[in-house]
């Protein structure tokens, strides 16, 4: 069930500028509000989009999370680079 919590966390971070800034300002504090395990917290903090998708998170949501925390749609090139990186 944990990847549902991961999706909730990603959705909350991407749901508006205030939430995004709250996460960026204090990632550990923000993530402590959610029942995530350590590996999930690391994936979110490191913006491991490939790993987040692989664990079952919606690709669309993972992209929206990336756009929110990485400077907008102009950063999609790097997003795709990460998604297509060798395992």
């Amino acid at each position: 069930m944990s990847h549902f919590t991961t999706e909730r966390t990603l959705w909350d971070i991407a749901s508006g500028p205030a939430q995004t800034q709250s996460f960026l300002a204090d990632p550990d504090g923000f993530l402590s509000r959610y029942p995530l395990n350590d590996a999930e917290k690391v994936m979110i903090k490191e913006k491991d989009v490939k790993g987040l998708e692989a664990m079952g998170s919606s690709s669309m949501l993972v992209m929206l999370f990336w756009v929110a925390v990485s400077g907008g749609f102009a950063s999609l090139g790097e997003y795709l680079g990460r998604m297509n990186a060798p395992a």
Partner: protein
Amino acid sequence: MAEIVGGFLLPHDPLVTADPDAPSKEQGDAVRNAFKHVAKRLEELAVDTVIVVGDDHYTVFGPQCLPRCLIVIGDAAGPIEPWVRLPQEPFRINQPLAEHIMQHGFDNGIDWAVAKSITLDHSTSLPIHLCFQDKPGISAIPVLINSGVEPLIPNRRCYQIGQAMREAVLAWDGPERVAIIGTGGISHWVGMKEMGRVNVEWDQMIMAAVERGDAEAIIALSDDEIIRESGNGGLEIKNWIVALGFVDRFRGEVIEYQAVHEWVTGCGFMEIAA
């Protein structure tokens, strides 16, 4: 009695307005002109109400609530996303007919989720803006189905929802002339590693099925096959299926098709009529 005058299938690609200069002028103009063509056809058909079928993109709704099918019966505005670069405006909603469709559905096996007041994402907002927001005589009834986020609504259920709305409109005593717009697709990979790919062959297969009035060929496609061949965004043909069920015994005519890699989408426009 209200009359069903036809329908349209078209993309709701937010990059059309968010990044208008990304593709060649020729391709961009072809897509923009197709939206203008639909707007003109709505006027020619003397449509006064358009049911606009879209899907939320994990934007308005989140993991805490994912409506399977939702009808707007009250106030609506959109788009909610500033980056789409359309003004967030209130929409004219045909509230009496929307409430009737809601109640008719409740009485006939469609357990609608209901929005009494909502700000919509680009899937319904962009087509409303580009097709009839500037036409005071045309109102909307936005409908959302869950074709974007798991658990996905089955294709067959989408067709049934379209049929149920058809029956509701035909049972309505008002003088409305109603059209439907099924929005989305065709092939696009949203956030997936293939994002930017367009499967022209698949898109043409879908449009050919619509042309010959073969809804069953589309309904029979599995979700896995749709995702494999046309990406997660390709699942938005479920929105089209609702429109096909609404028009019933339809034939389709291609208005435009452009594989716009810069807009990451195969942009297909069709008119459907009985």
